[in-house]
């Protein structure tokens, strides 16, 4: 599979969760990639964790935060 196709699969998973109203609540990076946790309050459900392997997906998930997505969550956790 091309690098772009691998990234695209991971991006679709991220975007799909966001589309369903999930918020990113944690990003932990280690030797195996980035574990990203998502939580949804309405309707409430179990947290979802994605293990992102591609560099572009790890970039995408933070680019979403930089570009304003769920800034509320970020500002809240700073304060």
């Amino acid at each position, binding site marked *: 599979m*091309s*690098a*772009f196709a691998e990234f695209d699969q991971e991006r679709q998973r991220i975007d799909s969760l966001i589309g369903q109203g999930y918020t*990113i*609540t*944690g*990003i*932990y*990076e280690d030797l195996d990639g980035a574990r990203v946790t998502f939580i949804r309050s309405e309707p409430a459900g179990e947290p979802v964790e994605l293990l992102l392997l591609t560099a572009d997906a790890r*970039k995408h998930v*933070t*680019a979403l*935060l*930089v*570009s*304003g997505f769920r800034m509320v*969550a*970020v500002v809240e*956790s*700073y304060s």
Partner: protein
Amino acid sequence: MADLSIDFAGIKSPNPFWLASAPPTNTGYQVQRAFEAGWGGAVWKTLGEPVINTSARFAAVHFGGQRVAGFNNIELITDRPLEVNLKEIYETKRRFPDHTIIASLMVEPKREKWHEIVKRVEAIGVDGLELNFGCPHGMAERGMGAASGQQPDLVLAQTAWVKEVATTPVIVKLTPNITDITVVARHAVKGGADAISLINTINSLAGVDIHSWNTIPNVGGQGAHGGYCGPAVKPIALSMVAECARDREVGVPISGIGGISTWQDVVEFMLMGSTGIQVCTAVMHHGFRIVEEMIDGLNHYLDGKGLASVTELIGQSVPRYSNWGDLDLNYKVVARINEENCINCNKCHIACEDASHQCIDMLTNAEGKAILQVREEDCVGCNLCSIVCPADGAIDMVALDSGLAPMSWNQRSRIISGVNGSYSEAEVV
């Protein structure tokens, strides 16, 4: 025509082109001919206690048909008595009062030795002093040159001793044979340096003769490490100049040295923060008259840019040189191959296939002609294909608009820490 004159830490020079302290500045005869050719200044071959130089001193690295891509020497400082040099400096200055003569000095790291040489040299009238803390061989074994230049406290102390008696500006010449050149630069400034110059030569062994098994160069079958300079060292010198230029604690004028051989090199060093430059190897290779082309080229360039003075170049690129951690990760370039300029050598395909991201496809176009095409979504924009491509204009690196706000590694780390509620990520500088 633009004004090429510079004021380097109070030292006036008709242009920024100076000869570095080296064989071309060994005698009055040479320096006077250099001034006639157009050089604005000269740093005299380093003066100090008597030395004896070896026979067989130089070697060069020729690479891919380019002679003297790099130059290696095991020469020490001047082997002529101080009085002879001083007399010739005096005569040269008398003939060329508007040209710059800097005396390069190196003595043992003792206060009285520095005082003595500074007083004797300044008494005959020089425009400034350059302290040679950079020579990597011969003198270093005696605690001079790079040996003292590698010890920041000794650089500070010796500069301060010189400043106690010097009446002309003091330039400290730095050795590149050190982990972080800004540490030494800062110590020179703390010692009172009015300016710094860099780089001296880089520790080197030019080669080993695979037939005789002797080192290159060798003195009767024995070799010793030398100092490397010439075009090959330019990127190293430029980065060291840039590091010093952007360090606020350094903050003194810089004389850029290392691999300069064209007017374009001069512009690059000035944009990166040099107020003036010095040249050695290019003159050893091509003679004093290379300065004519440098002056012409610089003049045309400044006119083309609409600049009235060469000093307007100084430091313009420094703010564009930052830390890796502050670069925009969302900036994206991709390679694009222009069929009309491509000669179908396949070098880009091989390079991308073997050493990058396997994204240049070999296709056949509608007319049945073999063509190469980049799969842009897989291209990481590494530049390798355009670097190896031998045909001008065959590959363009094109910036794509990602539509994303800029995001650096450091910003990203802060965002992640914010989300996680902790500051766990290290920033990258």
